[in-house]
């Protein structure tokens, strides 16, 4: 039955491709069995929408008259510092950047109302952004100061370039201490008061392709409401973690680095958010199509929330002190039921990623493919798999002697 991506693309162009979401495929496989479903279905679409901190965007703002060299100078976008260490007018804004005068956690928990993620959202929304820059001045770039409104429409390039997105599985965060803690996994109430998770589970891209058999460098994806590509494996990519018999990682594992034209993206899928007591970040929407090239690949896409296990981690101690201890494992069906049992106690659960938005992304990508405007790409190189031996190492800290 083996199909090729080329054959699937021909069917897409002829309007004959069968496309279903990673949620729909579950029932389809139950009804028809793997063999029949694999013959019928050409593409399974996945989706995820949640906070993805290692996100950012680079901009080329065009040259001012007279010219200014921002590289080596300082640049602020709506008071949020951007990285200016490239050529004259290329800058990078990271999702976690904060205005210099933000009080941060001076009064704990800090609010973090506006940061780099919000600037990226406002750029995508087409709103004007205030750019203030200072430079040291050179013979060829004499100007030392620039204050101007910029708008994404006028920029030469505005490119979303995220170092680590779409994590393949993630911790369930709890708090064993007797004080409320404020984390990137949300507000965690004392004494196991709540458990927060962040994954689209059965809809999540890499959980539907656990061994990266179809998703690779060059894979075309839904990114922030526009079209993007997988650029590389994500930072902290960790394919060698503990896996279930179905191949699904039981810990945070693989990740994607993605890139795409910010000018096509929409704030509905790229939203600046504030984590109380932690900082600013960006909620990113990603959808990846999985070509059904074999029965094996189809079997992976039929994974259900009940088949995917995540570790429960104490963020008051084990996480912050980099201890490997976990309090047990729970699956996403249990997490989505609203409560899980941890240490013999019933703990209410909440999600930080939006499952309803993940469904919307998988549906949107399905529509794009069915309409013939989105063709699949052949990866140009695979992501490092289990055999690569790549692991996620801690810092080898070597104190510097005085």
């Amino acid at each position, binding site marked *: 039955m083996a199909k090729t991506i080329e054959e699937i693309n021909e069917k897409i162009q002829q309007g004959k491709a069968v496309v279903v979401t990673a949620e729909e495929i579950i029932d389809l496989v139950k009804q028809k069995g793997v063999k029949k479903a694999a013959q019928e279905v050409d593409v399974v679409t996945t989706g995820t929408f949640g906070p993805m901190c290692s996100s950012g965007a680079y901009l080329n703002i065009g040259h001012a008259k007279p010219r200014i060299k921002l590289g080596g100078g300082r640049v602020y976008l709506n008071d949020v510092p951007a990285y200016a260490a490239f050529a004259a007018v290329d800058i990078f804004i990271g999702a976690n950047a904060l205005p210099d005068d933000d009080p941060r956690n001076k009064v704990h928990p800090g609010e973090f109302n506006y940061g780099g993620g919000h600037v990226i959202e406002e750029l995508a929304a087409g709103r004007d952004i205030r750019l203030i820059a200072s430079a040291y001045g050179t013979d060829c770039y004499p100007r030392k100061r620039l204050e101007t409104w910029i708008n994404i429409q006028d920029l030469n390039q505005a490119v979303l370039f995220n170092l680590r997105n779409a994590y393949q599985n993630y911790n369930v965060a709890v708090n064993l201490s007797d004080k409320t803690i404020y984390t990137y996994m*949300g507000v965690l109430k004392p004494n196991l008061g709540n458990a927060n998770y962040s994954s689209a589970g059965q809809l999540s891209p890499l959980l539907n392709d656990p061994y990266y058999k179809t998703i690779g460098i060059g894979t075309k994806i839904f990114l922030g409401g526009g079209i993007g590509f997988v650029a590389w494996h994500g930072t902290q990519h960790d394919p060698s973690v503990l896996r279930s018999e179905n191949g699904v990682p039981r810990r945070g594992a693989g990740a994607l680095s993605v890139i795409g034209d910010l000018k096509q993206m929409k704030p509905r899928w790229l*939203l600046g958010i504030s984590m109380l007591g932690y900082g600013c970040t960006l*909620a990113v929407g990603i959808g990846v199509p999985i070509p059904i090239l074999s029965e094996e690949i189809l079997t992976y896409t039929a994974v259900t929330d009940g088949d995917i296990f995540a570790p429960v981690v104490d963020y008051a101690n084990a996480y912050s002190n980099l201890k490997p201890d976990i309090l047990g494992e729970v699956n996403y069906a249990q997490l989505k039921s609203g409560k899980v049992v941890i240490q013999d106690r019933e703990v209410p*659960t*909440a999600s*930080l990623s*939006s499952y*309803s*938005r993940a469904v919307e992304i998988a549906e949107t990508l399905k529509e794009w493919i069915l309409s013939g405007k989105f063709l699949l790409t052949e990866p140009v190189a695979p992501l490092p798999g289990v055999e690569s031996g790549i692991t996620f190492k801690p810092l080898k800290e070597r104190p510097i002697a005085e």
Partner: protein
Amino acid sequence: MAVSKRIVLHFPRRLVDRPIVSRLVKDYDLEFNILKASVTPEEEGLMVLELSGKQANYDKGIRYLTESGVKIQSLSQNVIRNEERCTHCGACITICPTGAFEVEPLTRRVMFYDEKCLACGLCIKACPPRAMEVHF
């Protein structure tokens, strides 16, 4: 018929130092639970009450408050979810002490039941996209 409603009272400056709410008990046989009370720098008073009693007494009590010069609003008019910003993630669900947020099991969308809301404000900063707003 008994009623129980959550209301927001705005006291003008001239009423801030008068015993007004206590007369709801004495003269109108109503019970109240104070959910929030404050006096602003402009010396206007704000009180969020759960007020309960017989319908006829409740209506008379409300008339008394209005005639005294107190402005009254229903609490649910003050707590608003910005639907543009809400992503239906669910971070609010375990934060809310009264269970005013619930996931709709089929769509996985987060429902906000404003009649359960006490306007405590805990969800405002715990909401990552800052979709919850309280206006008094």
